[in-house]
C-alpha cells in the first residue's frame, strides 16, 4: 500500500509540510521498499479550492494513507470517504514519518482516523442538499409557470405566428435568439418550449430555443469574459449559436424521419 506525505521538498529527507492543501509536494512512497515519487501539488499556490486539487491528486495516486501536519475538515472528509486513512500532527522528516507509520507507532496526539459516516447521516445530508437546491429552483419555476398561464391566456396563436411564421430558417433563428437572451435553470425552458409547441410554434424554433437557453448566455457573458477571457467567451458563444441552429435542423429532421 502506498502512502502520501505532504512535503516541503522533493526527497525523503525533506520536512513534512504542515498544511496539506498548500504543501509544495506530495511524496508518494511505498513504506516497505521506501521507493518514492515526488509530485508537485497543483494546489500549492494556495488559490481557491486548493485543498480539493490536493485531495484529487492523493485519490488519483491510489494511496491508502495520508500523513500531514494539518488538513481541513472538508479534505479530511473526502479522503476518509474514499477509504484513505488520515494521520495529522505529523512532524519531522518525511522518512521518519513513514518509518513511524510503518512500525505503527502512533502517539495518540498524532493519530487521527475518521470513521466512515453512517448511511443514515449520508442519506439525510443528500435529502437536505436536494431540498435546498429545489428551494432555490422553485420560486423562479413557479414564476415561469404563472407567466406561461398569462401568456396562454393573452397571446393568441395569430400573434405567435407573426413572430414564428413557420419558415424553418426564420423560426430557428428566432428560437435561438430568444434562448440566447433568456437564461435560468433549463427546467424553465422545457415548460416554455412545451407550451410554445402546444400553441403551434414549430419544433425547429423550440429545439433551437431549448439548446440556446443552456449553452449561450448573453446575460452571463460578462461573467464568462471575466473568468475565461474575451476571446474564448465570444468565440465559444458564437460557435454555440451556430451549433444551436445545426442541432435544431438535425434533431427535427431525424425525429420526423424516425416517426415516419
Amino acid at each position, binding site marked *: 500500500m502506498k502512502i502520501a506525505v505532504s512535503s516541503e521538498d522533493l526527497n525523503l529527507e525533506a520536512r513534512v509540510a504542515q498544511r496539506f492543501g498548500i504543501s509544495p509536494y506530495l511524496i508518494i512512497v511505498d513504506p516497505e521498499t521506501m521507493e518514492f515519487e515526488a509530485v508537485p501539488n497543483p494546489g500549492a499556490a494556495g488559490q481557491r479550492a486548493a485543498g*480539493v486539487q490536493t485531495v484529487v491528486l492523493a485519490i488519483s495516486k491510489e494511496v491508502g494513507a495520508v500523513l500531514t501536519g494539518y488538513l481541513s475538515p472538508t479534505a479530511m472528509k473526502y479522503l476518509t470517504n474514499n477509504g484513505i486513512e488520515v494521520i495529522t500532527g505529523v512532524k519531522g522528516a518525511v522518512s521518519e514519518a513513514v518509518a513511524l507509520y510503518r512500525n505503527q507507532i502512533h502517539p495518540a496526539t498524532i493519530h487521527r482516523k475518521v470513521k466512515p459516516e453512517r448511511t443514515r447521516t449520508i442519506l439525510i445530508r443528500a435529502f437536505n442538499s436536494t431540498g435546498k437546491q429545489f428551494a*432555490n429552483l422553485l420560486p*423562479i419555476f413557479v414564476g415561469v409557470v404563472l407567466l406561461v398561464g398569462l401568456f*396562454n391566456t393573452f397571446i393568441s396563436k395569430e400573434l405567435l405566428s407573426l413572430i414564428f411564421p413557420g419558415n424553418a430558417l426564420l423560426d430557428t433563428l428566432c428560437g435561438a435568439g430568444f434562448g440566447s437572451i433568456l437564461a435560468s435553470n433549463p427546467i424553465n425552458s422545457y415548460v416554455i418550449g412545451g407550451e410554445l409547441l402546444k400553441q403551434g410554434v414549430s419544433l425547429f424554433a423550440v429545439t433551437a430555443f431549448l439548446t440556446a437557453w443552456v449553452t449561450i448566455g448573453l446575460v452571463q457573458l460578462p461573467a*464568462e469574459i471575466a473568468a475565461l477571457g474575451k476571446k474564448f467567451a465570444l*468565440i465559444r458563444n458564437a460557435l454555440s449559436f451556430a451549433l444551436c441552429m445545426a442541432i435544431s435542423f438535425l434533431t427535427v429532421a431525424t*425525429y420526423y424521419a*424516425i416517426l415516419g
Partner: protein
Amino acid sequence: MISMKAKKDEISTQKRSWFRNLIFPGCVLVIYGMVLVISPAEAAMAFGSSAGILFNLMLPLSLVFTIMVLMNLFLKPVHIVRFLGPESGSKGIVLSAVAGIISMGPIYAWYPLLRELREKGAKNSLIAVFLANRAVKPFLLPIMIAYLGGVYVVVLTLFTIAGSLAVGYLVNILIKD
C-alpha cells in the same frame, strides 16, 4: 474566528440569493394583481392554466427530486474536478463531456473553477465541451420527456453531445492553447 466570519458571510450570501430569487415571481404576482383588477375572468383563466401545468408536472417533478437525491448521494464536486483535469486526447474529451452532463447548479458558479483548471493546464477545447454538455441534464429528463416525448429527447441529447465535440474541436482550432 475566521471560519465563523466565513460562515456568517455564506449565510448572508444565501439570504441575498433567496431574496433575489423572489423578485421574478413577485413581479409576476404583481402583474396577476393588475390583471385581476382589470379583468377578473381572464386572471382566473390564466391562473387555471398555470395550475393545470403544475398539476401535470407533479409526477415528473417528484422524479426530478429523486434523481437529484441520487446524484447528491453518489456525485461530489471532487469527482467532477477529477473528470475535468488536464487530461488530453479522447479520454479528456469524454471525461469533460461527462463532467458537463453531471454538473449541477448555475453556470456562473462554475466559472471560477473552470478558470483555475485552465490555469492548471485544462485545454480550452475541453472547457468548451464541458460548457456545451451542460445542456444535457439527466435529472431533468422526466420533465423534458413529459413535454416533448422520449424519442425526441433521445435524438436531441445525442445531437447535443455530438455538437459539443464539434464546438470543442473548432475552439481548439480558433484559439491556440
